[in-house]
């Protein structure tokens, strides 16, 4: 028998996601030891808005990372040989096992105990009636579905109490840590934390956490018993879908920007530094690329990729792997079509830098072009790169939804905000309207994009020398 009841399955996007995490950790360690990087980041850490946004982002990133650890469970043994399921699951699926398993027949409203559509049901006495059948899972512990409101209220209340206790414990722990750092008593630390006197605005973090706890507490308490956000057409829990969509959005938002980086950086620096014919060629390339309307270029490239995948089906053993490769290809396409803006910015900045005295001095000393670009120009462009990285993220998350609607987004089998909206849109005309999938996608996307935008603004304000000189205000 195998040692583990599962086999780890590493998808390509997982590799990149964890490499990215490693890269961020390495960058953080590097930035800690270099004052010119530590200063702007500590400015970010002192901004209450940025810290509140970061708290929300931590929730999203944790969900996304849990969803990036994939495995295939062991099937019940057949003839003494270990057989693993073909379906790839993630650790998040394990955490959300009840949500994943509790499938209904079709649509049901949030907290409903009955199906959304009437069905012909055969009673025990043989009589056939048209009625709303009870759900298989939502509220099945109830004897009488009429009492669901009281049950929901009770469970939600318990959830809130537990969440608030946990939140309070965290706040205490935090002030204990602060007290150790500052060398005062816990009480003093607690008071300075709440009056906003700590350098890092812990008050904003705690307030955000409090709001999150107030929402998450009842949801966690209710989710195993009810479909908190309803179910979709095939009876899948919408809360589960929303949480699964997070990874797709994060992967697209981060990996696509990473693809743009090498092109933008190398070509931008070269164009600005060498000028002359190198500059002409590079300018021509990016003008040509950016002259094609973005959606059309992406659509054309994705169509071609679809044809390729259709004609080479043998390369993709399972749906998850195919969807994963498609996701990566989408990131690459998004990256290849959108590096031009950043490249133009970097070229302009490199043009300015190359005229400065320290570069001229380096050239007079006979330092090679390569070394000047690597050592003297690129590091001085990094603030622009950092700003572009964080600013592009939210745009890409929004673009995914639109592209999936157009039909050139992620694989239809992959859960994403775009596919959620796309399938819910068809039910707009129904009476009464099926609104919960749309509402769920709306709120999760808004929260993610808003947090990313606020954080990006703080990073821009901290890194942009023009803003920093104007006293830190945009």
């Amino acid at each position, binding site marked *: 028998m195998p040692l583990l009841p599962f086999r780890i399955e590493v998808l390509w996007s997982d590799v990149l996601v964890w490499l990215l995490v490693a890269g961020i950790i390495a960058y953080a360690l590097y930035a800690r030891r270099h004052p010119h990087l530590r200063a702007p980041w500590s400015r970010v850490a002192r901004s209450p808005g940025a810290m509140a946004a970061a708290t929300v982002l931590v929730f999203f990133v944790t969900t996304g990372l849990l969803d990036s650890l994939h495995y295939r469970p062991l099937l019940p043994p057949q003839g003494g040989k270990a057989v693993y399921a073909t379906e790839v699951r993630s650790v998040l699926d394990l955490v959300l096992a009840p949500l994943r398993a509790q499938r209904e027949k079709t649509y049901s409203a949030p907290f409903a105990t009955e199906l959304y559509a009437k069905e012909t049901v055969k009673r025990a006495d043989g009589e056939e009636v048209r009625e709303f059948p009870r759900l298989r899972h939502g509220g099945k512990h109830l004897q009488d579905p009429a009492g669901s409101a009281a049950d929901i209220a009770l469970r939600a209340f318990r959830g809130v109490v537990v969440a608030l206790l946990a939140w309070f414990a965290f706040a205490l722990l935090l002030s204990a840590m602060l007290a150790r750092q500052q060398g005062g008593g816990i009480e003093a630390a607690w008071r300075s934390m709440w009056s906003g006197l700590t350098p890092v605005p812990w008050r904003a973090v705690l307030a955000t956490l409090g709001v999150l706890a107030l929402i998450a507490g009842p949801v966690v308490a209710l989710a195993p018993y009810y479909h908190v956000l309803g179910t979709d057409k095939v009876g899948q829990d919408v809360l589960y879908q929303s949480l699964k969509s997070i990874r797709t959005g994060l992967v697209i938002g981060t990996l696509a920007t990473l693809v743009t980086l090498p092109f933008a950086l190398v070509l931008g620096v070269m164009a600005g530094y060498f000028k002359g014919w190198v500059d002409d060629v590079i300018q021509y390339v990016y*003008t*040509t690329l950016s002259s094609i309307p973005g959606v059309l270029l992406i659509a*054309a490239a994705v169509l071609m*990729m679809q044809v390729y995948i259709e004609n080479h089906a043998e390369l993709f053993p399972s749906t998850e792997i195919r969807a994963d490769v498609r996701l990566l290809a989408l990131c690459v396409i998004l990256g290849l079509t959108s590096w031009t803006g950043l490249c133009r910015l970097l070229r302009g900045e490199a043009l300015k830098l190359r005229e400065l005295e320290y570069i001229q001095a380096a050239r007079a000393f006979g330092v090679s072009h390569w070394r000047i670009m690597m050592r003297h120009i690129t590091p001085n462009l990094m603030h622009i790169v950092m700003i572009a990285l964080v600013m592009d993220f939210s745009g890409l998350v929004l673009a995914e939804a639109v592209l999936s609607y157009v039909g*050139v987004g992620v694989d239809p089998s992959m859960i994403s905000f775009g596919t959620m909206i796309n399938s819910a849109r068809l039910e707009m005309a129904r009476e009464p309207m099926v609104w919960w999938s749309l509402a769920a996608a709306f709120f999760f996307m808004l929260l993610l994009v808003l947090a990313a935008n606020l954080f990006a603004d703080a990073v821009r304000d901290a890194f942009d020398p023009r803003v920093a000189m104007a006293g830190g205000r945009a």
Partner: protein
Amino acid sequence: MSAYLLRRVLYGVLVLLGVNVLTFALFFFVNSPDDMARAQLGAKRVTPEAVEKWKHERGYDKPLFLNEKKSGIEQVTDTVFYTKSVRLFAFDFGASDQGRNIGYDISTRMWPSLAVQLPAFIIGLLVYISFALLLALFRASAFDVGGVVLCVLLMSISSLFYIIGGQYVFGKLWSLVPISGYDGGFEALKFLALPVLIGVASGIGGSTRWYRSIFIEEIGKDYVRTARAKGIGELRVLFRHVLQNAMIPILTGVVVVIPLLFMGALITESFFGIPGLGSYTIDAISQQDFAIVRAMVFLGSVLYVIGLILTDISYTLVDPRVRFS
């Protein structure tokens, strides 16, 4: 100056040449015409005869660059590259993979697109610039901070939700306008009102913030301080000096999109059932009609290049430094 503009036009042609070669490579090198035929005809059980027939009907069975079976000029002209790519420069878009005349479709469908896009563009410009000026006038006040936060909130909402929400509230709940459809003449107004409104609304967040940042940057410059020092009122400084000088960065971003208004808005048109070029493109993408997608890519680039040239011309109009250099 005319020499300068001529140079820009020639550069534009060069860019179009690049786009042409790039699209050709994308559509014919990544996948062979055989692959495309199989994808179009569906499934793997397609017979080779069916593939050949599909290719022949659409003219994909010719050699890519050089036809050795023909003689003289036809060696070059009777090829896929010439018929499908070079002919685009004469705005001969050929037939779609479904057999429709793309040139005719474009000439009829661009007007509904323009009918949505042009009013949305003009109203939007007025609304965004007014809001941005208002925020710039009260900069660094609670009103300004609130306005910027509202902008960030509005730009964090996917454009899909503006459309879905607008259709639900104005079309379904209040029944003010039909949810979707289109008609010619004055009847079109009731179909256009909502798409135009949504087009304006969905851009408010991002655009207002962008214009505001331009104005704020302009306000920080020395000439503004001089003007204030001379005792000119804040309103006059803002409208007379800042707005005028901010025209250059504004024109860079605005003029270039004017020709692209013809292309329509993909999502809006498909949601509202407007028979414009946007919904045409979406339909082509979902039917995998590569000929139409190729034509639209080229058309989009042509319009963008025209936009770039218009931008250059507009510079010469507003900036005397460009005019006299």
